[in-house]
């Protein structure tokens, strides 16, 4: 834990003593975390480290122990609608909504801003169009989700989360099924959002993409092992350690890249 205490205005999310269970398994083991505002934080770690659970707890979508503060206020104290306006969450696809059109899916992101059963306003349409164009899903707005490929579908779901235009955006595996050009697009979208003051938190398995973030949070076994700048060698060492030395971080053309460690290749057993 390298994070020092920041003034409330600079912290978008603050978690203290978080614990959560899935069934009988304790997934989060009393962790503390601060997410700085207007920065991009990447959460990484091996499978089963509790990354997705942490994101769900931070979004207020799961029962947990401990406290989460959103913009300085306890999550439970936020009325549901206001919280939804402040914080958008993109989960791993729960695999449904096949009958909805792309347009309708993206428009769902505007629900927190609309009166109950109220007609969408021009700014809602504008936000939806902007989001769909950002993820290049605008051309299929009349098609249904069921008619799209996995990657196309992911871009629509991403547009749904973007159309909320919330100051805090949490994304769980946003790059699933995306081809390299659209992964690069996603990077550009996140960079633009952060430049405009949005706080972005992402859970990523693509370590090289995660290393583009401002802050890296390394998790293992329901705890946070390390939190630090992505360019910090200490972060790289923590990352390599949590993946049991099976990956190595290299600098390639000004970018950090995670590659399989040569000692971990099958011809040279590591254990």
């Amino acid at each position: 834990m390298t994070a020092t205490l920041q003034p409330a205005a600079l912290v978008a999310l603050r978690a203290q003593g978080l614990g959560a269970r899935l069934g009988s398994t304790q997934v989060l083991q009393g962790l503390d975390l601060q997410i700085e505002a207007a920065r991009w934080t990447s959460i990484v770690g091996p499978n089963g480290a509790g990354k997705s659970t942490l994101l769900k707890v931070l979004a207020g979508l799961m029962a947990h122990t401990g406290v989460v503060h959103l913009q300085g206020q306890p999550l439970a104290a936020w009325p549901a609608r206001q919280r939804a306006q402040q914080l958008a969450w993109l989960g791993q696809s729960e695999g449904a909504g096949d009958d909805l059109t792309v347009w309708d899916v993206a428009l769902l992101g505007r629900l927190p801003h609309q009166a109950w059963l109220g007609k969408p306003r021009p700014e809602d349409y504008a936000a939806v169009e902007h989001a769909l164009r950002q993820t290049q899903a605008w051309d299929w707005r009349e098609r249904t989700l069921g008619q799209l490929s996995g990657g196309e579908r992911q871009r629509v779901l991403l547009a749904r989360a973007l159309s909320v235009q919330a100051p805090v955006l949490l994304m769980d595996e946003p790059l699933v099924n995306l081809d390299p050009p659209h992964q690069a697009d996603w990077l550009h979208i996140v960079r633009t959002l952060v430049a405009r003051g949005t706080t972005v938190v992402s859970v990523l398995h693509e370590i090289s993409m995660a290393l583009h973030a401002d802050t890296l949070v390394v998790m293992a076994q329901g705890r946070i092992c390390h939190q630090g700048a992505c360019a910090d060698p200490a972060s790289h060492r923590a990352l390599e350690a949590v993946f049991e030395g099976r990956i190595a971080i290299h600098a390639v053309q000004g970018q950090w890249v995670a590659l399989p460690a040569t000692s971990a290749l099958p011809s040279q057993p590591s254990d």
Partner: protein
Amino acid sequence: MKQWVRQRPLALAAGLALLSLLLLGLGACVGSTGLQSVREVWSDAVALQIVWDIRLPRSAGAWAAGALLGLAGAVAQGLFRNPLADPYLLGSAAGASLGVCVALALLGASPVAAPWMLQLGTTGAAFVGATAAVLLTLALARGVQQTLRLLLAGVVVGVVLGAASSLVLLVQPQLMQAMQGFMLGSTALVGWGACVLMLGGWCLCMALAWGLSPVLDGLSLGESTAASLGLPVVPMRIALVLVLALATGTAVAHTGLIAFVGLAAPHLVRAFARAGHARLVLLSSLMGGALLLGADLLARSLIAPQELPVGVLTAVLGGGYLLWLMHRQNPVAVGSKP
């Protein structure tokens, strides 16, 4: 801006409303003696009486029952995020059967029971049975949060209450024929009172379902996503289950267990138009009404002066048409999910 999405549902709604009116007119003219012209009916006082007292209420009742089942089907499929969900899923069918069974056993055995008492008793018993079964399912599933629990509890309640009905029938085998009529469904005994009740129930359920439709839309992307959008998922799911129980119970109480309308209507709508749940529920309802009214017409006229049980026809017609649609279109269009 959104015209491309809106036009087809509107056209479908207009088409279904027109079809319903046409079928209603036809329903007034078709009797046990075959088709009568309007002029013939107007000039004959007895025929007019028959139209007003028998044919019109049963036609309107068939439409209302179909509309309730179509509505319940669309709500069930949205609520459980499953295209195979139907209105009877939470045990309401088995509950209604048991209610009728018990009512028949109690009333039928008593020599003082008049036919109208029997009719009123079975209607009430079916409604009470259907509602009680859904409440029992909710209690067993300990709420509405877990879809799988809810579905399993519904299956268990269905099986257990079905076994109880069988037990009653085993003890009193003379009820078998009356029960068979209820299980197959019939619109023959619907009067104006039942019509008013069903249409009133339909208005209430439609208003509630319309109001709750944003939550159905949100739920179609998954429960966590719906919650992240600030939707009060748990109270609204309870409300939706109650709408489901009310709509199904009202229809079942008056017309028996009519098969397939609730399952087929939403799929038929989806084959024609894509719409959010607000419109899907309304369109499914109109579709269910038209479907059951059409089936009722055929049930009356196919082997006149005899009648077929309308439930048999809805199963054959609705099922056949759905199969044809599945055969004709790609699997996605009829709502199948991976």
